[in-house]
């Protein structure tokens, strides 16, 4: 018997007698014979814990994680403090479900309320949901909000927005009855005039800032261009940048969204992570997903509940604002713990260190004779460099010397076959950057 099961043979006999059947098999008599599965499952044999550990270590060892990581493109090698792990391993958080019963769930509910507050503070918005699936899906969620808030069905996305985000938006669009229009970049940044033109008659404009190339967009002008034609400006931002970069709410955005992995979450081959989604008060009743609100109990004591639930699928069914049941609580909690450890000062310093090291990398690479793809543009923690040959080949050679040098932009953008997108987090050292320069030049 599995070590996860408690029932002894005697337990089973007593229970079957109480039920009034003679065998376990009889419990399944309502399943028609024609759809009963007649043989044993053909799956590998059961493993004990020690065998399982060995098997999984074997698989993990086949992955290559010892190269110096300059790969970003949406997921970043930031440091995760040990306190984050300690909190996430609390069984009361790890093994709880959605807080439908608030008296059993004040811990999770208050944590989500604190998370919502942190997201609002960082983005300059009034209301945040309890998190979404990831940075790409929240963009699709935001489109749904925009469509219903404006009654319009065109969505403008800048081409300098992460390709994964754009692909997800385009996959969701037909079901939502949306048409997606892309605005190309010019030398790595988006021209507000082009946005204004494209946004005529649009529900929303989604732009990433810093954009996929790491470039600082002229975000206030992009937002103004959208607002000028009554399209909702939606900024896709990096939490780690918001200690040094202005909050989207301060420059007129209607919503702010993004991938939260940078705060408190390991890269983990792409997930699970969390997406964040925040808006101005006007859109509160249209937001998808869970929202936690503060209230009082029968004795006047403060407490927290899931609120505005009539937006949600379990009440509104086919008229709901989305089909989401779960959010990504545990990963959002990781983000909250990390942000709480950082505080405003730490978050600003984190941004500054990323920027300083990125500048160092750009200077060293250009000093060694390499060209930047967009030399005139200010960047945050990522930039594109020309390798002087096919970037995939350059990457291969760099990896042979122990450096994962970046992301070949030719995978997503025509005419960029020679360019690598290089990410530099606070975990990189100047020695490691020197090594990058060495292997690329």
């Amino acid at each position: 018997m599995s070590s996860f099961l408690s029932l002894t043979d005697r337990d089973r006999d007593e229970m079957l007698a109480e039920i009034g059947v003679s065998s376990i098999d009889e419990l399944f008599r309502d399943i028609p014979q024609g759809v009963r599965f007649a043989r044993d499952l053909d799956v590998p044999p059961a493993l004990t814990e020690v065998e399982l550990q060995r098997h999984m270590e074997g698989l993990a060892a086949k992955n290559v994680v010892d190269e110096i990581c300059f790969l970003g493109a949406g997921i970043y090698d930031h440091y995760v403090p040990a306190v984050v792990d300690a909190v996430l391993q609390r069984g009361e958080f790890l093994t709880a479900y959605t807080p439908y019963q608030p008296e059993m769930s004040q811990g999770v509910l208050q944590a989500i309320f604190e998370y919502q507050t942190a997201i609002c503070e960082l983005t300059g918005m009034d209301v945040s949901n309890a998190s979404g699936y990831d940075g790409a899906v929240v963009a699709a969620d935001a489109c749904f909000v925009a469509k219903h808030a404006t009654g319009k069905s065109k969505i403008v996305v800048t081409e300098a927005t992460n390709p994964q985000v754009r692909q997800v938006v385009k996959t969701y669009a037909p079901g939502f009855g949306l048409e997606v229009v892309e605005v190309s970049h010019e030398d790595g940044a988006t021209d507000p005039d082009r946005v204004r033109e494209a946004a005529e008659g649009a529900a929303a404009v989604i732009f990433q800032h810093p954009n996929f190339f790491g470039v600082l967009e002229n975000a206030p002008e992009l937002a103004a261009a959208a607002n000028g034609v009554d399209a909702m400006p939606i900024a896709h931002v990096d939490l780690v940048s918001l200690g040094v970069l202005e909050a989207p709410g301060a420059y007129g955005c209607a919503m702010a969204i993004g991938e939260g992995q940078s705060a408190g979450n390991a890269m983990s081959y792409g997930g699970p992570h969390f997406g964040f989604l925040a808006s101005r008060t006007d859109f509160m009743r249209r937001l998808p997903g869970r929202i936690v609100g503060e209230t009082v109990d029968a004795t006047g004591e403060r407490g927290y509940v899931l609120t505005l639930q009539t937006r949600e699928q379990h009440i509104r069914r086919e008229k709901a604002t989305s089909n989401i049941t779960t959010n990504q609580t545990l990963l959002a909690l990781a983000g909250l713990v990390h942000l709480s450890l950082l505080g405003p000062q730490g978050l600003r310093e984190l941004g500054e260190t990323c920027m300083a090291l990125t500048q160092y990398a750009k200077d060293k690479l250009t000093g060694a004779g390499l060209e930047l793809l967009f030399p005139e543009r200010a960047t945050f923690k990522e930039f594109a460099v020309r390798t002087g040959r096919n970037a995939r080949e350059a990457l291969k050679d760099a990896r042979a010397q122990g450096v994962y040098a970046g992301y070949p932009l030719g995978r997503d953008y025509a005419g960029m076959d020679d360019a690598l997108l290089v990410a530099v987090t606070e975990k990189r050292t100047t020695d490691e950057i020197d090594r990058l320069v060495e292997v690329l030049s």
Partner: protein
Amino acid sequence: MKLIYEKSQPGRRGSGIPKPAGLEAPEVPEELRRKEPPRLPEMAEPEVLRHFTELSTRNFGIDTGFYPLGSCTMKYNPRINERLVGLPGFANLHPLVDDDAAQGALELEWNLQAILLEVTGLDAVSLQPAAGSQGELTGLMLFHAYFRDRGEDEQRRKVVIPDTAHGTNPASVTMAGYEVTHVKTDPRGNIDVDDLRTKVDEHTAGLMLTNPSTLGLFDENIEEIERIFHGAGALMYYDGANLNAVCGISRPGDMGFDIVHINLHKTFSQPHGGGGPGGGPIAVRDMLAPFLPVPVVVQDGEKYRLEYDRPKSIGKVRAFSGPFGVFVRSYAFMRAYGPGLKEMSEVAVLNANYLRARLQGAYDLPYERLCMHEFVLSARNLKRDFGVTALDVAKRLMDYGFHPPTIYFPLVVPEALMIEPTESEAKETLDAFCEAMLAIAREAAEEPEVVHEAPHSRPVKRLDEVRAAKQPVVRYQFEEHPEEQGAGSRQLEAQKGA
């Protein structure tokens, strides 16, 4: 207790950031520079840890006790899986590395897919969807893609859903651009096949069904249902929320379903995390495979790779190949059971029937049949006789140390109490839960006010949800925020109770 923002003191910090010697950050252009710093908490590391530890003591998880929340499959989450997901070879792997650097991850995904195919009886898998609801939406996108390919997409606009369905089903149908056709439940808790026959025709794209249903009942007419849908050229979608009842016992593919989503956080033990993460892979029949999201994991001889060039693919529903950490835990869980997954389902069904047998009588049982892994009671007898509702029963269970069942769902049962014990529980626990439920039924008759006012032992009493909805306070408001009232004594009590 205080919010973390109320514990903040200017000048404190909980982590240091490396400052490379001699390097300065370049100036951020004036118009892009942050003007007001975000008011994040300012606390030293020990106080941050204590804050979240204290919060955790105000929460209940499977590790704390019995959690019979129907439809959610709150089973034991093996601790080894947390250690495994943290292995550096998994945790530190970037999702965009070349495939040769991710051979272990891809092999794991491939192996996981193979087990899912065996359990569901289907032909191809996409691991990408982030949760069951996203699996549903992806499945409906496959409906569109399949019928578009056959030139029938314009014609087939309707998706049939029984009145017992999870709310996600109709919500997904709308988001996918389909219309909902509702079908009734018959007196035995099966789909009303006569009602169904009148509603399925050449305009039907398909069915979404949970089997066993949210009533915990296996649909005895499933073969007839299959004939009706496939006979009309429509597809069948299986909501895998209740797969824990039938692993190794009956396979959705053999029942006739063409698309299945699997809730890895239910059947395969990804911890629920207070409401996520989940995992909602979908398994499909061959004819739907070309439309699956990209990338798809493929095996080339000894090697594995991610394939993006799939011209008929619907695209991407989530970034990268899916929530990989969830795959690690679920795969480990499956390997720990092996073919014993069948015994897992058998015990889940045995536990549910045992509770049903012991509790029927004290509570109404609307469908008198053997149940599968869960069952639905009704507290309508207590409401009628003593004014005690399902909500009251749920709150009173907390005082006995149990998480309440799901209440007021499915909608077809008034005062519903939906109970799912899972396979994880010992008979002693099941007995203690029955004793509590029976005691509450007695209390309802003898001292109903104790039940009405429950819970009495939690950190808070019943909360004013009307106030929360009417004047939504959805973030801390700093200076303008109302102060906490009379906290101290209650917290102490709660800790003693915990």
